[in-house]
């Protein structure tokens, strides 16, 4: 199956979802106790993950998967927004956007996602463990080393 015919569609739809993620993050920042933005973020990132996996973009898929896992823990625990979580999720969204753009033009190998992937994983573990403060105490290098 020639996947290149779907690349434009993948890019257009991913951009749409990533733009929605920005709006949803801003909404969550305004209403930190709200659950709707987190559910919307989960769905948007889940969709990007499914499309990227289908296109064979492994790093986009991995990054989206880690982001989705954190959002799932937040969603299930009805966790409120914190500055640290919002910063991390904005950073992850930006990294995902870059990953999508580079993958479509065949430059996926240039992507460095280990740090953000480790930070997301660490945050998900902390939230799941009920350590609400989340990622600040986790230096990215340590997280990345642990992740490898």
């Amino acid at each position, binding site marked *: 199956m020639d996947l290149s015919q*779907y690349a434009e*569609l993948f890019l257009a739809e991913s951009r749409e979802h990533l733009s929605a993620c920005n709006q949803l993050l801003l909404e969550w920042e305004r209403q930190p106790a709200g659950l709707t933005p987190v559910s919307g973020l989960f769905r948007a990132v889940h969709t990007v993950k499914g*499309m990227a*996996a*289908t296109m064979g973009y492994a790093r986009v898929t991995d990054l989206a998967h880690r982001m989705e896992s954190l959002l799932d823990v937040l969603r299930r625990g009805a966790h409120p927004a914190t500055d640290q979580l919002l910063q991390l999720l904005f950073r992850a969204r930006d990294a995902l956007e870059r990953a999508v753009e580079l993958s479509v033009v065949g430059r996926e190998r240039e992507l460095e996602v280990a740090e953000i992937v480790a930070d997301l994983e660490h945050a998900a573990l902390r939230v799941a463990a009920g350590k609400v403060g989340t990622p600040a105490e986790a230096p990215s290098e340590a997280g990345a080393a642990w992740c490898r």
Partner: protein
Amino acid sequence: MSHTVLVCDDAIFMRTMISDILAQAGFEIVGEAETGSQAVEKYRQLKPDLVTMDIVMPDMGGIDAVREIVKQDPDAKILMCSAMGQQALVVEAIQAGAKDFVVKPFQPSRVLEAVQRVLG
């Protein structure tokens, strides 16, 4: 006569790809839905031979849509399209009345095998 299919997924990308795979294999795509409630409504209108159903969709999710469709038509043939790591949801969908599942990322041969299993 070719089998008719209703394709349900919130992503145009996935709907396009599934539709292409099935159309190239001779199936007739009679409708598409991007939410669970649209899927239920279109099933009622179109009575397709087969439904492909995503799990995570806005408005009404795929599993609730399966329940509603099976309530209307206990013989409905629904194939779930799941992502990796959704095993528990797939089990729930099968208990709700879905006949089988395929896991994303899709390989055309796997999709077609699953479709044949569902249509018997």
